Each structure stands twice: as structure tokens, then as C-alpha cells.
């Protein structure tokens, strides 16, 4: 079960463009080289509507690079990206966003000089300007600020917020564009146990509305709890994929997470 193509098995060998029928996102045979370094090598993965797909791996494995390729911030050396039925490989980031992708950033990209509410409001206004959604942006924003649990700090400037809350601002901002595919890059780091649990609930709640989530997360408990499928990256390659249980047992994954401590963390019971 550790073969990279496992999840894409429905694709017949003759036609590499044959797609995962449930996929709202499909990344095919993507490679990225920075100078002489292979950041990604032949990465293929998909994310499905109404599911949470995990993307895990050690630091520097290429998770954020994958997100950058999907959103168009990084041009791959080779490979293709599909959103729904449409190939987006050549499209600029804003055109891809308008097809319903939204993301958060591991290195924060908040609008620091605006307040929490204005951050989400701005995103709602952006969404209104390019979609046919007629809901007043202020209504969308206040709804979302409440939903992600930021109402008490709504009037605070974001550059004054602690990192954990700023990540929730990015989540709220992404939600304000009503995405069908949400890419979350370590959105839970900086949150305490209860907050992380609430975040997990929120994600599950979103999938019930039909959102597909691709989740990069270091918190193994959270990943194992919420993900339907997991892809594991190591040194820019997909070394394993499958259900949480399958991935947890995969020796290649345990080896990648070097050392007994990490292996037990992966294989053992949630703490």
C-alpha cells in the first residue's frame, strides 16, 4: 500500500490524464527544482469533495511547495494541476482562486494593518467582486468571524495578535471566499489542546457542507482524527498514501519520521 499511485489506481496506465473521479483537486507528476535542489519529484495527489486529505511529512519535505504549486505561487518544473474538470497549470494565482481554491500560509500572510474583522471583510469583498454571490460582505464577515472564534478580538489589528489567532484569521479569510477546496498549512500550530479540538470540529463541519480540505499539519493526533486519506511526503517524494491506519503502519513512513520517539508517536495511541 505504500506505492505512490495507490490512490490514483482507478487511472488506467495508458492514459496518465485519467483522473480520480471524486477529485476536486488533482496534482499530476509534479516536480519543482530550485537551482540544483529537487524540492518536489514526481508528486501526484488528489483531494476529494467532502473529505479531509492529510499531507504530512518531516520539515522541508515539500508540503508548502506543493501548496504553492497548487495555488499558482510557484511554477512547477513539470507537472499538471486540475481543479474540478479544469486544468489550471498555466493560470495565475487569482484565476485559480476564482475557481474555488483558498489557502492559509505557514509563514503568516495576514493583512497586518487591518483589524481581524477587516481582514475577513476584505476577503468577503474580494469574493463578491468576482463571484455572483450577492450576500453583503459585512454579513459574511461577521458570520465567519464568529464561526472561527475570533469575535472577541474582531476589532484588534492583526499584526498585534499572537500567531495562533493570526492563523485563525487566515482561516476566516479563506472561508470568506466560500472555497470548494481549502488548503490549510499548519493552521493549528499555536493553538492549545481545546482550541485544536474545536478546530478539528470546525473542519469536519466544513466537509459536511461539501468543502474539500487538504491539510498540512504537524499535530499527528489531529491528522489521524480528522483525515479520510493521507499522503506522506519525504524529500519531495510521495512515499506513502492511504487511510490513516494504513499510513500509520507503513514502515517507510516510520523510517521517514526518524527515530523511535516519532515512530511511536505515529504508531501509538493518541496521547
Amino acid at each position: 500500500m505504500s506505492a505512490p499511485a495507490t490512490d490514483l489506481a482507478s487511472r488506467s496506465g495508458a492514459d496518465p490524464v485519467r483522473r480520480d473521479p471524486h477529485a476536486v483537486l488533482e496534482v499530476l507528476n509534479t516536480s519543482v527544482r530550485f537551482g540544483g535542489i529537487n524540492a518536489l519529484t514526481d508528486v501526484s495527489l488528489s483531494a476529494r469533495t467532502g473529505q479531509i486529505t492529510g499531507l504530512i511529512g518531516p520539515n522541508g519535505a515539500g508540503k508548502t511547495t506543493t501548496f504553492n504549486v497548487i495555488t499558482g505561487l510557484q511554477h512547477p518544473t513539470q507537472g499538471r494541476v486540475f481543479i474540478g474538470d479544469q486544468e489550471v497549470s498555466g493560470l495565475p494565482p487569482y484565476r485559480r482562486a476564482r475557481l474555488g481554491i483558498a489557502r492559509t500560509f505557514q509563514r503568516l500572510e495576514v493583512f497586518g494593518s487591518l483589524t481581524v474583522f477587516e481582514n475577513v471583510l476584505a476577503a468577503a469583498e474580494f469574493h463578491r467582486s468576482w463571484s455572483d454571490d450577492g450576500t453583503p460582505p459585512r454579513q459574511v464577515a461577521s458570520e465567519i468571524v464568529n464561526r472561527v472564534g475570533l469575535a472577541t478580538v474582531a476589532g484588534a489589528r492583526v499584526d498585534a495578535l499572537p500567531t495562533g489567532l493570526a492563523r485563525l484569521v487566515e482561516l476566516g479569510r479563506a472561508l470568506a471566499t466560500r472555497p470548494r477546496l481549502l488548503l490549510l498549512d499548519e493552521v493549528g500550530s499555536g493553538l492549545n489542546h481545546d482550541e485544536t479540538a474545536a478546530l478539528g470540529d470546525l473542519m469536519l463541519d466544513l466537509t459536511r457542507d461539501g468543502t474539500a480540505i487538504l491539510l498540512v499539519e504537524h499535530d499527528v493526533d489531529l491528522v489521524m482524527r480528522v483525515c479520510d486519506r493521507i499522503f506522506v511526503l519525504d524529500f519531495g517524494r510521495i512515499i506513502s498514501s492511504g487511510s490513516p491506519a494504513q499510513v500509520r503502519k507503513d514502515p517507510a513512513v516510520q523510517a521517514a519520521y526518524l527515530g523511535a520517539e516519532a515512530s511511536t508517536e505515529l504508531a501509538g495511541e493518541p496521547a
Partner: protein
Amino acid sequence: MGSELLSFTVVGLVTGCVYALIATGLVVTYTTTGIFNFAHGAIGMAAAFMFWQLWISWHVNPVLALVLVLFVIAPLFGLVIERLLMRPLYGAPTDVTVVVTLGLLLALVGMAQSFWKPNTTHILPLFFHANGFRLGQVLVSYHAVTAIAATVAIALGLRVLFNRTRLGIAMRAVVDNPDLLAMAGGRPAQVQQFAWMLGCSLAALAGILLAPLAQLDILLLTLLVVDGYAAAIIGRLRNLPLAVLGALAIGLGQNYLIEFAPGSGFLSRIYNILPMVVLFAVLILLPQDRLRTASFSGAVAPRVAGLKSSVVWAVLLVVGCVLISFGLSPSNLRIGANGFAIALILLSLVLLTGYGGMVSLCQMTFAGLGAVMMGHLGHGGSLVGVVTAVALAAAVGALIALPTLKMRGLYLALATFAFATVMQQAVFTQLFGTGGNLEVPRPHIPGIPTDSDRQFFILTAAVFAVASVGILALRRSSFGRRLVAVNDSPAACATLGVNVNWTKLTVFTIAAGLAGLGGALVGGVAGQVDANGFVALQSLVLLLLARVGGINTATGAFLGASTLTLFAVLQPHVPQLGNLQFLLTGLAAISVGRDPNGAGGRIAELAAKAREIFGIEHRDPVVPVGAVAGTPAAVFLDEEEGRLVGAGH
């Protein structure tokens, strides 16, 4: 023909070598400290004058004088500016570093003007009494040989320094990561200090070699050195050999153009603008970095005034101007009207740079275009002139914005500066007519008299007041939020579906149009303008004034222009102010390094404090809490409320 070609080649090589020295100095400081030193030329100029002072005026032995300037005074100066001005700037936003180094430029020009009176001629002779040797039929001066030899020696020396010595390798490492260098046992502060000392010495050498070839003139030397920027950019601000090659190519190209271009018409002047055209072209062709991600923006911008308070202040301003207008002399009324026209141009920088984070060094060029249109099409004060002034400036603004949209802070600043220089040297001289003077009428609004100085003063005040209210309303609108968002994080905006380039294009166009309106009014103050009113240097001064006044508030635009007005009013009574103006403006701009929000920001701070003291609390945007109470996340909120509030403050 052959000997002519040879002689132009020799001159071209010398010019190229001087450009190479300039470019080398710029690259050395930029690669080690990340600061592009706009004052580089001014430092070279000051060094050339210092050398003149020692050698010609005080009769110091020329070799001793040269050693003193190159190896003592210049490095010492580098040491001092690094310690006082540059060190606090490492990691600061580009427009702050641009303003501080421009401030240094102006301060040096001001200081030079008070030491070496601009109206007396200073002559710096060639080295070796202009002796030389014959190469075929061409006399090659030893000065030229010295310039070429010095450049070759320095190029080789720097190569050894950067590749073979610990210090050089540390210099290359420090810009990438000073902290890492420190951990590896290097001393980033000393390395950066050395870079500034070396940079200043190189600037001094270039200035001293250039002065006898051109002319020992303060502004001329300061700006001639600007031609070396193109070479530095060809080397992408890090590749020294490429920069040197580029410098030689520009130097030779310029001199061949002098020989082979026709003796009159547009082409006869093209050699003048060649470096700037190259600079602009290279900037466009340079591969640009990916979308910039969020950066630390330095200071917290002041609160944006609400509609009510901005309207109240605008009305108070106009009423105040009506009241004081009765007590002002016609000349002071004109100075005041000029101040408000300038304030309009500063307001365009508030929008563009203050809110949008884009640095423009060509706002005065847009103003000039506005004045030209008002002059040509505004007969009898017709509003057609005003409308076309705004339209042409906006259209040219859009044209300039299009190829420069992807440029980041410094590159955009340099590109707009190149554009302003080209317009000044090649276009404005034509547009304003051969005599240089263009009659510009005052706009006539039906039913409102604007003919007298008093009426025109009130009109300009009213236009500024309305424009300020408009700009503040724009900032509070969803477009304003988009603008600020694009400035804070272009990458996030793009992934939220925003066409970042389109947003930038729009704001650049609006700002250019506003500057055009200001220019049309500037023209009406004296009834005529000439090309000298709209030179590139003035755009630099405007950016400094905007920063000093406070670039992210309309109040700041008013304060910046007021400073200028105050100088103009006081100057007839205190003649020394003429020189001091540059110096003081420069010094004020330097202070921006420590106080990026300027005077306007200070006032906003005081106002906020006053509100606190008097208990008039400003209301933040109201969020209806509990709109979707009952969802899991709302419960999450309730449980965590105490902690979240605690964490938020």
C-alpha cells in the same frame, strides 16, 4: 575617421570606467546591507569638492590630498553614516531606505551649496596637467590612463577581496543572513561598516575622476553619477563583472552616439538619456521575483479619519483660508496657492505610497504633464484644460505602470526615476516650447470668480480639501481595504482571487491623475511655467516632504506642503534659507528612518491620546457577536472567550 573613432573610444572607455566605479560602489553597499544608496553621487560630488578645497584652495600636495580624501575622509564619512543613518534601516521597508538616502543626498547638496557657492566657478584640473601621450593621431591624457588603470585595479582587487579573503566572503554572506554569519563567528556589524567605508571611497574616486572631465558643479556631479545606476542594475546589483561590462558598454555607446547621431533634433540629445533608457529597459527585462510575501511594515499606520471628521476638518480648512486670506499680501496668497497645489501632488503620494506601498519618483513629471495640458488646452481657464490635464497625466501614469507593475519597491523607484529623468531631458524641453515658458491660465469655474490671487488661493484650498475628503473616503471604501491588503500581502491577495496587478495599475493611474490636477493648478499660480519646475530632483523632494509630513495621512500632505510654503514665505526675509532648505529637508528626511509616520503620524498619536484623556473613545467597526450562535464554533468561542481575550492583548 579612424582617429576620430579612436578618440571617441578612449573618451567612451574613460566614461565607462567612471560608471563602473560608481556601479561597483553601489553594488558593494547594496549586496552587504540591502540598501541602495541614492546619495552615492552626492558623496562623490562632496569628495570632489573636498579634493578641490585641499589641492586648489589650500595648496596641499595633490597626492597627499588624494590620499586624504580617498583613504581618510571618505571612509570616515562612510563609518559615520553607517553608524548613525544606515544601521537602524537594515530590514526597513524600501521606501523608508529610499527616503533616508535621498535625504542624505539633499543634505549633502545643501551643505555643499553653503560651503562652495554655486554661483562661483570651481575648476578641478586634470591630473598630470592634462599631459598625455600620442596613440596614432590621438592624444590620450594621463588622466584617462589613470581612470582606466584605477578601474582595472579596483575590479581585480574586489575580485580577490570577495573570493579569496575572509572579509570578502563574510561580506557576501552578511546580506543573506546576518544572524547566521554571527553564529558562524563573523561580525556582521563590522562587515557592514566596512562595506559603507569602501562604498564611500569608491564614490569619492569616481567623483574626483569625473569632475575634471565634466565640470565641478554640485547638481551636475550629483546627477551625473546617477547614470552609473544603469550599470549597477545591469549587474542586478550583485554581479560585479557584469556591472563593469555594462558600464563600459554605456560609456562607449554614449560617446559613439555623440559622434554618429545627427547634430540636431531629438537624436542629437539621445546620448544624454541613454543611461536612463538603458536603466528603464533593463529593469523591465530583469526577471522579477515571485509575488512578494508579507513583510514587516515597520510602523503602525495612524487611524484613518472618519467621514464626519474629515468633512469637518476640510470645511474648517477652507473657512480658515478665507479668513486669513484678507490679511495676506498678493505674493503670499500666490505662495499659499502654490502650497495647496503641491499638497495635492503630495496627496497623490499618500494614496500611492502611504496606502499602496508603491514608491514613485516621478510625481512631478505627471504634474508637469498636467501643467502642459492646462497651458495648451485651457484657454481662458476652460475646464477642458483641467480635465485633459488629469486625463493625460492618468493615461501616461497607466502606461508607465503597465511595464513596471511587477517591480518591487526599489526597482519601481529606479524605473520611475529613470522615466522622470528622460522626460526632463528629452520631452519637457519640447513641450514647454523653445523659450521654456508656457502660459498657463487659472481654471475658471462658471459662477465662481477665480481671477484674483485671493480667489485663486481659496479655490486651491477648496480643491485640496475636497480631494482630501475623497482620498480618505477611498481609503475607507472596499477599494481602500483592497489597496492596503495588496500592500500588506500580495501573495495572500492573489490566492483570494484579487488581480494584484490590476489593483496596482488602478491606484497608479488615479495618483498620476491627481498629480496632474496639482500640476495644472501649480501652473495657474504664476500664470506661466517652465520645464525647470518639473525636474526629476523635485519628485525626490516631494517624496521627502510627503514622508516628513506623514505619508499615510491627508494631514501629512498638508504639513509637507506647509513646510515648503513656510520656506517660500520666509526666504525674502532670511536669504540664507535658500541653501538651508535643501539641508533642512534632507535632515528631516533622515529622521524618517526613526519615525516612519512623520509629523502627521505624531499628530494622530497625540489626538488619540487626547481622546483617551478626555474619555472620547473611538468606536471600532462593530461586529454583531452571536449572529450565528449555536454553531459548534460559536460554542467554542464561548468556552474559550476568557483565554482568547487574554491572548489577544
